[in-house]
C-alpha cells in the first residue's frame, strides 16, 4: 500500500513536470508544429510529366526534381517547408506522380508559384551555314532560322556567377553587369570543340527561347568559361545567376492543385480550438466528479495526465497540429473517459455484490479489461485505415486518434489503478462507501 502511494506521488510529480514542459517549451525547439490551416500558408500540388522519361530513370528524376524544388524553396527562405513526392495510388485508379509542396507562412501564392515553377532554359546555338547575305533578308529571319541547336545547354553548367564585365571573353560592352558561366568537364570539352570548329561564326546564347546575346567566336575557348551579357540590369543578372545555379527542372511540372490559407483564419481557429478544449475538459471533469465522486476525481487526474502526455507527444514526435487534430484531441478527451467508466461501473457492481473495496477495485479492472481491449482495437483499426486514406489534414486526425487510444490505455488503466489503490484505506466506513459509490444520491 505504501509503495503504491509513493508511486502515485511520483506519477503526480512527473505530471506536474510534464505540465511545466508543455507550458514552458513553446519558445524552444519543442514548439508545436502547426499545420497550414492554422499557421497560414500555401500548399501547391504539381503533376510531374514523366511521359518523356524512360521507365528506369523515373524514380531518379523524381528525386532530382524534389531536390531542385527544395533548393528553390530554400532561396525563398521559408521555415520548415515540406516537399514530398506522392504517387496516385492504384486504388485511386491513377499512376500520376505528384509533388506536394507546403510552405508554412507563405500566403503570397503568386511569388511562390513563380519561384518554384520558373525553369530557366539556357542553350547555346550556333549560326547556320548558307545564310542569305543581304541585310534585308537577314532582318526577315526569325532567330530559329538563323541558329541551330548544339548540345551545349544549362545541363552542363557547373555554376554561374555575377560579374562586372571588363569586355573580355565572349562578351562586349565593358562596365555592365554580366553572368559568368562555368561549365563542368563535359561542358568544357564540348564548348572547346564548338569554338574550335566554328571560329568566325556567331554563337548565340538563348535563355528561355530568346536570344540574349550573340557574340562572335574569335578563338577556341579551352577553360570552359563563358560570359553572357545582354544589357542586364543588376537585378536581372542576379536573378539569372540564381536561377541558373538552382538548375533546371529535370521533369516538366504542371500545377494541378493549390491551397492558400490566410494567417488570420488560422489564428482564429487556434483560439477557438483552445477554448473548446478547455470548456470540453471542464465539462467532462465536472461530470466525472459529480457522478463517480472520489474515483471520478482520480479519473480527472489521469485525464489531465492524458492530455499532458498527448500535448508533449505533439511536440516531441512532432505531430502536425491542424484543426482536425485539435478536434481529434477534444473528441478523445470524451472517449478517454470510457475506460474509466467501464472500470468504475464494474467496480460498483462488485461493491454492491458485497465485496471488499480492495477486491472490488481489482475485480473491476480485471473484468473491464477485455471490453476495453476489444473496443480499443476497433478504434485502432479505423485509425490506421484513416491514416492511409488521409491527406495531410486527415493524417493528423488519425494519428491523434491512434496515439489517444494507446496513451489512454496507459493512463486510464495502469496509472488510474495505482491512484485507486493509493487512496484505498483498509478500514471501510460509510464515508469510503459513499466516496466510492456513484450517482447523484447517497
Amino acid at each position: 500500500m505504501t509503495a503504491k502511494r509513493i508511486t502515485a506521488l511520483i506519477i503526480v510529480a512527473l505530471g506536474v513536470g510534464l505540465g511545466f514542459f508543455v507550458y514552458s517549451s513553446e519558445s524552444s525547439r519543442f514548439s508545436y508544429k502547426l499545420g497550414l490551416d492554422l499557421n497560414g500558408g500555401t500548399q501547391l500540388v504539381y503533376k510531374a510529366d514523366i511521359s518523356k522519361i524512360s521507365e528506369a530513370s523515373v524514380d531518379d528524376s523524381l528525386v532530382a526534381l524534389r531536390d531542385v524544388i527544395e533548393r528553390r524553396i530554400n532561396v525563398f527562405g521559408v521555415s520548415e517547408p515540406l516537399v514530398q513526392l506522392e504517387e496516385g495510388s492504384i486504388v485511386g485508379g491513377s499512376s500520376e506522380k505528384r509533388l506536394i509542396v507546403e510552405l508554412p507562412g507563405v500566403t503570397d501564392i503568386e511569388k511562390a508559384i513563380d519561384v518554384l515553377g520558373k525553369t530557366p532554359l539556357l542553350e547555346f546555338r550556333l549560326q547556320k551555314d548558307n545564310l542569305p547575305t543581304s541585310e534585308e533578308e537577314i532582318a526577315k529571319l526569325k532567330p530559329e532560322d538563323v541558329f541551330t541547336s548544339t548540345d551545349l545547354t544549362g545541363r552542363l553548367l557547373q555554376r554561374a556567377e555575377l560579374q562586372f564585365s571588363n569586355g573580355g571573353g565572349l562578351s562586349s560592352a565593358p562596365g555592365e553587369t554580366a553572368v559568368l558561366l562555368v561549365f563542368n568537364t563535359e561542358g568544357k570539352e564540348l564548348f572547346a570543340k564548338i569554338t574550335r570548329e566554328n571560329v568566325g561564326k556567331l554563337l548565340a546564347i538563348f535563355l528561355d527561347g530568346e536570344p540574349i546575346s550573340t557574340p562572335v567566336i574569335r578563338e577556341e575557348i579551352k577553360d570552359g568559361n563563358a560570359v553572357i551579357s545582354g544589357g542586364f540590369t543588376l537585378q536581372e543578372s542576379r536573378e539569372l545567376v540564381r536561377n541558373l545555379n538552382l538548375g533546371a527542372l529535370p521533369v516538366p511540372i504542371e500545377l494541378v492543385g493549390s491551397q492558400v490559407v490566410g494567417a488570420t483564419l488560422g489564428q482564429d481557429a487556434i483560439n477557438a480550438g483552445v477554448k473548446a478544449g478547455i470548456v470540453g475538459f471542464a465539462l467532462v471533469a465536472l461530470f466525472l466528479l459529480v457522478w463517480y465522486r472520489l474515483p471520478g476525481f482520480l479519473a480527472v487526474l489521469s485525464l489531465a495526465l492524458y492530455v499532458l502526455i498527448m500535448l508533449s507527444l505533439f511536440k516531441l514526435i512532432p505531430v502536425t497540429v491542424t484543426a482536425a487534430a485539435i478536434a481529434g484531441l477534444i473528441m478523445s478527451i470524451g472517449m478517454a473517459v470510457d475506460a474509466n467508466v467501464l472500470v468504475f461501473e464494474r467496480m460498483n457492481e462488485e461493491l454492491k455484490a458485497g465485496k471488499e473495496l480492495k477486491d472490488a477495485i481489482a475485480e473491476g479492472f480485471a473484468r473491464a479489461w477485455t471490453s476495453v481491449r476489444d473496443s480499443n482495437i476497433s478504434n485502432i483499426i479505423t485509425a490506421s485505415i484513416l491514416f492511409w486514406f488521409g491527406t495531410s489534414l486527415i493524417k493528423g486526425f488519425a494519428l491523434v486518434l491512434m496515439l489517444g487510444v494507446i496513451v489512454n490505455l496507459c493512463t486510464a488503466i495502469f496509472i488510474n489503478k495505482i491512484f485507486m489503490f493509493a487512496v484505498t484505506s483498509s478500514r471501510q466506513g460509510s464515508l469510503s462507501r459513499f466516496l466510492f459509490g456513484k450517482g447523484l444520491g447517497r
Partner: protein
Amino acid sequence: MFVIKHKVIFIGISVLLVLLSLGAIFTYGLKPSIDFAGGVLVEVSYPEGRPEVSSLETALSGSDLELGVFSLRPSGEDAVTLRARSLSETERQTLLGILSVNNTEKIAVERFNNVGPAIGEELSRKAFFALGLVVLVIILFITFAFRGVSKPVSSWKYGLVAIVALIHDILIPTGVFAVLGYYMGYEIDTLFVTALLAIFGYSVADTIVIFDRIRENLKKKVEYRGKETFEEVVGNSLRESAGRSFNTSLTTGLALAVLYVFGPDSTNHFALTLLVGIVAGTYSSIFLASPLLVLLEKWQKKVM
C-alpha cells in the same frame, strides 16, 4: 429488460430513421465539395469595405473566364466566398483582378483552394475503398474476437449485427447532411468522410462492449448450468452495460457539442457529423444490436 421486451418498437424506430435518411439521400442527393468534385474555393476579404456582391457577380459572369455555374456569397463582415470550377494559374490571376474590381479595391486572399479534377476523382475512389475496407476488417475482427462464443448464435452473426448497427450509424448522419446540404448548403468533404470513419470505430467499440458482456454472461451460464434463455442473458447483459454506454456517449457527446459551439469554423460540420453519428451509435448499440441478436436467435430456432 424492457429494451428486449419492446424490441420490435426500438428496432422499428431505427428502421424508420434509416428509411428517412435513405429517402433524404435519394431525394436531395449529397453535395460533394471541391475535395471530391474538383473546383475552386476562394475567400477574399475587403479590408476597406466590401463592394456590392451583385456587381461582382455581374463582373464575373461577364468576364471571359467562362466560369459556368458559380456561387458567390458574402461571408463574415467584409469577405466574399466564391465556388467555381477549377482554375489555371493565369485564370486565377484574372479572377483576382475581377474580384479587386480591376485593382481599385484592396483585397486580401484569406483562402484559396484549387483542386484539379483528377485529384478529386482519385480521392473519392480512395474514400469508398477506405469505407469498404473498414467494414471488412471489422467483420473479421469481431468474428475473431467472438470465436469462443458460437452457441446459441454463431460468432460471425455478432459481426453481421455489428455491421448492421454500423450502417445505421453512418446512414443517419449522411441523411442529416443530405437535408442540411439541401437547405443550408452543407457539403460532403474529406472531413465528413473522416468523421464517418471515426464513427465506424466508435460505433463498433460501443457495440463490442455490450457484446462482450453477453459473451461473459453466456460463459457464466455454461459454467453454472444456468437456466436462462438467450433472451434473458442478453437482457441482463444490456442492463449491466447500458449505464456505461450512456455515460461514455455523454462525455464524448459533451466534448463534441463544445467543439461544435466553441470550436473553429473549419471543424464545425465535422463536429456535427460526429455528434449525430455518436448519438446514433449509442442508440444502435443499446436499442438495435442486442435486440437484433435476440431476433436472430429466434429465427434460427424456428428454422431448426
